[in-house]
């Protein structure tokens, strides 16, 4: 039981950073929360609504995303998010960092 809890905590921490990167990478075109969730899950990255929405907001408040309430195709108004210029710059650097880290880690763990 104890171990299980520790594992849960570590997974949570591990995912936290990765999720930001995943979200930034999928927002070169604007999406609303739920469509982004679907897009992520189609590519194998499962994420809770209750994690994704606050995350989007936090990234926006950091200036990495921009958002807008909008009505598309006569649907209900939804909040659409898209990456900002600042976000693009950060994403480029993060990507680089990620591939170095992934390489190092896969060598280390093999």
């Amino acid at each position: 039981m104890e171990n299980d809890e520790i594992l849960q905590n570590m997974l949570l921490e591990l995912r936290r950073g990765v999720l930001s990167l995943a979200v930034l990478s999928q927002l070169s075109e604007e999406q609303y929360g739920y469509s982004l969730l679907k897009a992520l899950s189609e590519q194998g990255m499962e994420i809770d609504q209750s994690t994704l929405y606050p995350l989007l907001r936090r990234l926006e408040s950091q200036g990495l995303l921009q958002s807008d309430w909008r009505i598309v195709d006569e649907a209900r108004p939804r909040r659409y998010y898209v990456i900002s210029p600042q976000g693009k710059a950060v994403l480029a650097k993060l990507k680089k960092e990620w591939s170095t880290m992934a390489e190092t880690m896969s060598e280390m763990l093999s």
Partner: protein
Amino acid sequence: MNLIDRYIAEVGRHLPEKNRTDIEAEIRSMVEDMLEERGGHDEKVIVETLEELGDPKSLAAKYAPPKRYLIGPGWYEVYLQTLQRVLYIVLPIFAAVTFILTLAKEPLDFVDALGNAFGGAFEVGLQIFFWITVVFILLERSDEVPGEAIERHPQKWTVAQLPEFAGKRQISVGEAMTDIIMDLFVLLWVVMPVVQSWLQGDLDNVLFINPELWNVWLPVFLVLMVLNLIHDVFKLKIGKWTPALTATNVILCLGSIIYIVALVTTQQVINPEFLRTLDPEQIARLRDVSTWSVWSVNITAAIIVGILIWDMVNSIRMARKLNEQPELVVANKNVS
């Protein structure tokens, strides 16, 4: 629909006011998207969806990580409302009564009366501020802060834990809390000296209230106040002037008015012994002690009766309004 509103309101209650509306709108849009995909607004689907989202408190915590507050956003507005209301009611009355009573003294001195009224009101205001703040700090402490444990076990939360919807209240939480706090103040103010002298065993301190009233009038008063207190707790819980609540209110107000009028016209409220303990110099300044004491009681009684009548009329008016509008409220909800 109602369940979703209650869920969102409960999340909102734990968010800072600054971006509450915006986050609430976003959560609503998120829930609608989820429902759309799951095929509709069946009660069962709604319950499933909301329980998947989990405890509103921990959802709010993900938007705005909880901080330790003396009085947090969940209580702050109610705190301000309550404080404002109690001060607005008590201070003017207190100042007015003090002013009139000081004017009754010889020689007629307006400056003295004004000074007494403002000085006294200031002190009473500080006391009220302190005690209400203490009450709300305790309420804040009684709310658990959603920690990581809740975050990892969201399944444990069920919609049954949602509090009743607070958005369409007729009687605000602040208003009902004000009444409860006023009841407690009055109870303490009357009971404390009596209890104190009982504890001390004898009448070495002379009480302000006539001991002849203890056997019948005081117990009746206590019963009335406790009934009032229970009624106000229901007011807080129900939040609307339903027929039952209104009826009880009218009965309690009428009962209190009859009690007060009977008390003031047939009994001597202020202990004659107490008047004798006043500073002789002060007594000399009063034109006539007994007239003065009767007057102060009568003025206070008149003000309380006035408030009771207003309260009674107001509750009947609000009950009628509630009766006229229920369909309108429901219709509005369905549109949104």
